[in-house]
């Protein structure tokens, strides 16, 4: 945002809680409690210094799909206020900021062809599509935004960056309809106020909701929370391990499925995704499937492979099996939410409490996609698939998460259904905006970084006009 506003006459103040590197005391400000379904420790799932959670970003990039923006009758609370084209306008710039190399994505298939064959999956619901990665720079993968762009920030004359400066309160004026000031505190005891023309909160989906809820001196329910929406709809991408085994009868797997490959000026990796048509026709959520390690099958598995290959008339003497990883979309859920806890942090702010939930139907819908992949492998006689997880406890036993916090200040044109409007302005507050994936009403399965950057650039574009 600061870089995008650099060429404007606007004077920008960037308040960063941390410094240039990790600091345990600052990181401890992220501590919170959680109840319900298992989830990550709140201070371990994000980072609090310049560049934020990009400092532990894996570098995975992929644009969201058109269907991710659509209202779907079978998916409650779905539908963005605009379509994919609206953020596509900013995607190239966002991709460039991520240092993703040549813009290939699904065009990578053409350039990767010399490395190996695409899995033959026929005309089914699952297809090969491509991730791109933030580039390798001097052994640092990927772009850490604070480190990478610190010098660029220093060169912006009308920008002031304050490190170790924690926003502790968004102060509304007497009408409750405008931000008058932002309280700032350091861990060394210094305090000051910023009196802004407009404020953009870009502190991640957990902290943004916390700051808005905790700023409750004028509006007792918190800033922008007149309809009790702030903090609801928390989401992340479940990334369960070893969800299935994929067997290839001839044992041959192109290297771009199992790891990153340098192709035509980009670093790419192939994944398996449900097509938009399959998602619509079968009411399944978005997901990404990655092919991981080679695995040894047990005797039952070997018998299943032998029986199936024999019946299909295929030679499976050289078969190989691989475990499958996944990134799943979850159904928007208003009760998967953040509230304030009674405990307070070192700056006196109330800590946050996560009420975590995950629906069995989300597991079931992803399983449906995996089963379709299995059907396609049989149809092309290329291989077969074993589904490893069925019961809720089996899914939860292998659960991990993408650290992709989303949804807590969701975007909707109706203030009763969302916290921010289509311009990312908080409903009912004339000069407060939110940047980041907390505004996502639904989540898709694409890694959010490059997409939230597109949205942030769009917001910067909007502010250039709105604050003129």
């Amino acid at each position, binding site marked *: 945002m600061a870089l995008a506003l650099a060429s404007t006459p606007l004077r920008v103040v960037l308040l960063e809680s941390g410094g240039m590197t990790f600091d345990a005391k600052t990181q401890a400000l992220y501590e919170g409690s959680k109840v319900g379904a298992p989830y990550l420790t709140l201070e371990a799932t994000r980072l609090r210094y310049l560049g934020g959670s990009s400092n532990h970003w894996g570098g995975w990039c992929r644009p969201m799909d058109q269907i991710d923006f659509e209202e779907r009758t079978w998916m409650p609370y779905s539908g963005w206020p605009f379509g994919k084209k609206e953020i596509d306008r900013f995607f190239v710039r966002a991709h460039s900021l991520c240092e993703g190399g040549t813009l290939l994505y699904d065009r990578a298939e053409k350039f990767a062809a010399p490395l190996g064959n695409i899995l033959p999956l026929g005309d089914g619901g699952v297809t090969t599509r491509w991730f791109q990665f933030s580039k390798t720079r001097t052994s640092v993968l990927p772009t850490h935004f604070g480190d990478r762009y610190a010098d660029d920030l220093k060169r912006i004359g009308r920008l002031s960056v304050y490190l170790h400066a924690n926003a502790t309160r968004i102060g509304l004026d007497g009408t409750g309809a405008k931000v008058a000031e932002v309280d700032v505190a350091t861990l060394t005891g210094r305090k000051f106020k910023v009196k802004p023309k407009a404020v953009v909160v870009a502190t991640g989906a957990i902290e943004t909701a916390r700051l808005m809820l905790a700023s409750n001196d004028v509006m007792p329910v918190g800033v922008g929370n007149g309809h009790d929406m702030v903090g609801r709809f928390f989401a992340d991408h479940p990334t369960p391990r070893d969800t*299935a085994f994929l067997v290839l009868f001839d044992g041959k797997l192109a290297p771009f499925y199992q790891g990153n490959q340098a192709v035509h000026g980009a670093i790419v990796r192939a994944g398996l995704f449900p097509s938009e048509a399959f998602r619509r026709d079968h009411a399944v959520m978005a997901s990404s499937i990655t092919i991981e390690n080679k695995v040894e099958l047990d005797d*039952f*598995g070997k*018998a*299943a492979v*032998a*029986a*199936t290959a*024999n*019946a*299909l*008339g295929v030679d499976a003497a050289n078969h190989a099996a691989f475990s499958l990883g996944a990134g799943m979309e979850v159904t928007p859920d208003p009760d998967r939410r953040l509230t304030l806890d009674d405990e307070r942090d070192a700056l006196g702010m109330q800590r946050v409490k996560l009420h975590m939930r995950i629906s069995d139907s989300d597991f079931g819908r992803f399983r449906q996609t995996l*089963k379709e992949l*299995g*059907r396609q492998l*049989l*149809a092309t*006689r290329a291989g*077969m*698939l*074993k*589904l*490893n997880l*069925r019961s809720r406890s089996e899914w939860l036993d292998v659960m991990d998460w993408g650290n992709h916090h989303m949804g807590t200040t969701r975007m909707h044109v109706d203030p009763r259904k969302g916290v921010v409007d289509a311009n990312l302005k908080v409903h009912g507050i004339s000069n407060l905006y939110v940047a980041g994936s907390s505004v996502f009403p639904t989540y898709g399965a694409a890694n959010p970084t490059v997409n939230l950057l597109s949205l942030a650039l769009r917001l910067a574009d909007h502010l250039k006009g709105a604050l003129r």
Partner: protein
Amino acid sequence: MKISRRDAIIAGGSAVVLVGAGVGAQFLLRKRHAPSPYDDLLDLLADRDADAQIGETVLAEVEEFDPKTMADDLRTRIAKRPLAAVLAEDVADGRVVEASGWVLPETLGLLCAMAAKAEA
């Protein structure tokens, strides 16, 4: 070295005996299955014992499984066509079953289930 006619006859005879013994042992040691009314279907399976184990897990997924009715259904479905062609039709039409998580063409899964029933 010169081989006499007598040595050649003995050597040839011994070979015949050894081959015969091998074939006989294979026949004697082969797992024998009691005849069943479904052998025309079970003969489509390459390894009836292993496939019966797979079939046990298919049966766990099926609420009702009457072997006679199923055999009639399978005979109609297969209609003396090659099994691979029937399985291709299954998966093209979305007919798959699970065997302990393994996604199988439905006809193959049901044949395995028939093998399990025949073993029972």
